């Protein structure tokens, strides 16, 4: 399957997630002094935020990737867990939670930051012995399911929710319904696991797991092979910045290196990997295809600060890199436009308003794509932009192909616009010229003449600007050398100018005052 096919097929896939859910709480503060009773820093807490972690986070990732997630096992013991439950339900996740009266609380992992520097993590792990008594069984939970269930994920952090009896009911359900089982494994529970379709470990866990099987000081490769043989299942080992290694139950291991990204925050990457694996396998991807996609997802997650949820379009972006990079290039030009050209754009707006208040006319022209921009501009003025109003007097010299070809034929192409300027433009009119290079001879000549006749000249051009700065009273210079990018920005600026001047003219002095005000 093509990666983009997998991403599209992920939509609507139904995955059941169970296992350890915790509250991931980030505590931010400032350190300004030491405690008086001992030389330790005092962190003045300024803000806190929390999100669901572990199994709930896997479910949330699945849901935000377009899948349908079911979460079995959640404890609603305080305000925070109540809010998390609501978030999960808001995301469309069906949650099997203990009643709020049950004596169980979610484990909590606090990450404490001074400014952006992480100081310490504190784990709170309340006892959840005999939790099962307060939840209906797994098979009851899925009994009336509308969507066909394809995959079960067990997220085992060792916080106590995953027990041998839970694993047994997962196994029964998987057998009964032919489900794919993925276990995010805990090396301390190896003896509890029977065969599953896929186990995932991180690098530290796989070495611990190998040690539990009696092999100490092994390499990651040796450890992966050993654990794979012992568990008779596919294994994926996630390796942080080094990507992942796949140990298929048959055949040699496969290295999948990480995409080079600037690391921002590794939190939540594990859960995203598990979610993408579960959805991709449900969508019919092979193990390797799923792993490659999950690896890409991890790269996206770690490149964003805080806990980030991968969206399907972000994954698709990766597989249509040229399109997304060209769009980003266009965005970047507009961003530079914001930092460089705001005063000039404002200046054009006020100048056009002044022209109309003096009952004068606006003319525009350009060649090729720039002719289209000129016509577009004039159309917005004579017709209407956003507000119902009378037309504004404006005229394009690039419209009349009979006139243009005739002038070109008889007087030469360089005079196509001068002849028209000479005929129409009067003192006090405004002339707008479009040329990405600022070098078109016919445009330059026409600007020159318009100026001589006492018109105001406005030029739309690119960063090189040619001779425009010398002959234009106001010059909009789009900071790019790339003609298509420049033209896209010209159109954006034209729209902005139309919107602003239309508003201003309607608000203040209407052109034919009485009728307009009514």
């Amino acid at each position: 399957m093509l990666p983009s096919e997998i991403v599209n097929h992920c939509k609507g896939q139904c995955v059941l997630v169970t296992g350890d859910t915790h509250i991931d709480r980030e505590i931010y503060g400032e350190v300004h002094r030491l405690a008086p009773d001992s030389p330790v820093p005092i962190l003045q807490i300024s803000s806190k935020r929390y999100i669901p972690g572990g199994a709930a986070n896997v479910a949330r990732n699945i849901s935000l990737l377009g899948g349908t997630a079911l979460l079995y096992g959640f404890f609603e013991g305080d305000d925070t867990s109540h809010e998390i439950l609501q978030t999960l339900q808001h995301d469309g996740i069906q949650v099997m939670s203990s009643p709020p009266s049950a004596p169980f609380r979610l484990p909590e992992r606090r990450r404490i930051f001074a400014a952006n520097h992480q100081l310490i993590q504190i784990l709170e792990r309340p006892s959840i012995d005999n939790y099962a008594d307060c939840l209906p069984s797994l098979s009851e939970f899925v009994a009336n399911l509308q969507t066909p269930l394809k995959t079960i994920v067990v997220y085992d952090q060792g916080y106590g929710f995953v027990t041998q009896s839970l694993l047994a009911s997962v196994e029964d359900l998987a057998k009964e319904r032919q489900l794919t089982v993925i276990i995010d494994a805990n090396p301390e529970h190896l003896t509890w696991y029977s065969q599953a379709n896929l186990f995932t470990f991180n690098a530290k866990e796989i070495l611990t797991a190998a040690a539990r099987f009696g092999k100490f000081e092994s390499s990651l490769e040796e450890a992966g092979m050993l654990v794979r043989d012992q568990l008779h299942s596919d294994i994926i080992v996630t390796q942080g910045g080094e990507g992942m290694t796949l140990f298929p139950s048959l055949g040699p291991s496969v290295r999948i290196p990480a995409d080079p990204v600037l690391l921002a925050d590794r939190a939540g990457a594990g859960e995203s990997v598990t979610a993408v694996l579960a959805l991709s396998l449900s969508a019919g991807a092979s193990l390797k295809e799923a792993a490659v996609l999950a690896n890409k997802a991890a790269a996206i997650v770690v490149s964003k600060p805080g806990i980030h949820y991968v969206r399907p379009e972000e994954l698709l972006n990766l597989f249509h890199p040229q399109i997304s990079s060209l769009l980003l290039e266009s965005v970047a030009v507009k961003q530079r436009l914001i930092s460089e050209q705001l005063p000039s754009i404002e200046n054009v707006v006020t100048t056009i308003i002044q022209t109309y208040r003096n009952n004068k006319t606006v003319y525009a022209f350009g060649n090729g794509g720039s002719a289209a921009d000129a016509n577009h501009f004039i159309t917005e003025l004579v017709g209407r932009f956003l507000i119902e109003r009378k037309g504004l007097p404006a005229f394009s010299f690039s419209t009349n192909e009979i006139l243009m070809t005739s002038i070109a034929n008889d007087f030469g192409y360089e005079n196509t616009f001068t002849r028209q300027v000479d005929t129409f433009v009067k003192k006090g009119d405004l002339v707008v010229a479009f040329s990405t290079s600022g070098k078109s001879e016919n445009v330059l000549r026409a600007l020159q003449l318009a100026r001589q006749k006492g018109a105001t000249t406005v030029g739309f051009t690119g960063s090189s600007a040619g001779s425009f700065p010398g002959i234009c009273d106001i010059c909009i210079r789009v900071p790019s050398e790339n003609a298509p990018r420049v033209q896209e920005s010209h159109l954006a600026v034209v729209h902005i100018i139309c919107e602003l001047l239309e508003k201003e003219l309607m608000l203040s002095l209407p052109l034919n005052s009485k009728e307009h005000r009514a």
Partner: protein
Amino acid sequence: MELIVNRSIELIQQFSHAKILVIGDVMLDCYLRCRAIDIADEAPVPLLEIVEQSNTLGGAANVARNLACLGVPTQLVGVVGNDIYSTEVTSLLEDSGVKFCSLPTSRPTTRKTRVLAGEHYYLRLDEEQSLGLSPTENNSLELLIKNQMQQVNLVVISDYDKGLVSSALAQFIERVAHQLNLRVLADLKPRNALHWKALDLITPNLTEARLLHSLIQPRNDIHREDATLARSLSEILRCDVVLKMDRQGMLIATTSGQISQLEAICHSPQDTTGAGDTVLSTLAATLAQGASLEEAAWLANVAASISVSQKGTYAVSAKELVEAVTRSTELSQPIKLT
């Protein structure tokens, strides 16, 4: 010596006869006892797991607890947030026998959390919002305080600069205290001491006293001798001063110009946390019986010796105080310096 012992025991036995109101910043001290289990997955920092959590009262709530423990019928006025920690504060105060008149506010309950890994104190997390109260909250607070002041014999202010006691509230309390002829004792952060005009007694430690002195007399040399510092503060602020000097004991400067010193009794203190609150509450309990400042300070010094010999924040009971006083043949007599 025997005289002072008998007199002290008599005073302690009368503790239950007076009623005291504590006003100030109510806090909760939380202790997270942890063990280090690993290095965190996504950052090179320790991962601690909480083994035990405990909470004790702090700030004005601890002063009130100390008073109640000494057998004084105690009322406390303070603000808490609308959160689970306010419930904890309320229940701890109830267990201590303090009558708590709380004003719920929109800000969080002031909380200091100490993170300990094994015996190693690792980090303190402070959660507070020490901006002043809203005008509505202030009005309710004044009403509450006035009402409570009518029922007591003495007022104790415990101000940790967490925004409760504004300059306006200080003046309000002094006005009501004047009308009701109540004495006001205070433990204050130096910059807030200037809110007050007619306190009867303040109990700064050395650092606070120096800072306070530099605030009111910026150009004066602050490296003066401790006794001169105490006397100077007493003269300028026109109130008695008990200067707490840790291992050096305490200095007592009265408005009449007398200075005396009490040597510290416990020479190997275990933990000085909360000893200041013990001193303040013992002074208040004793003065409320009509005792002299010298008598009150003598007893407070004995109480402090018990408090610092215990780990953690400790509240001394009347019974312990009687025992310590009885055992006190070797206890120091005040040394007159003037």
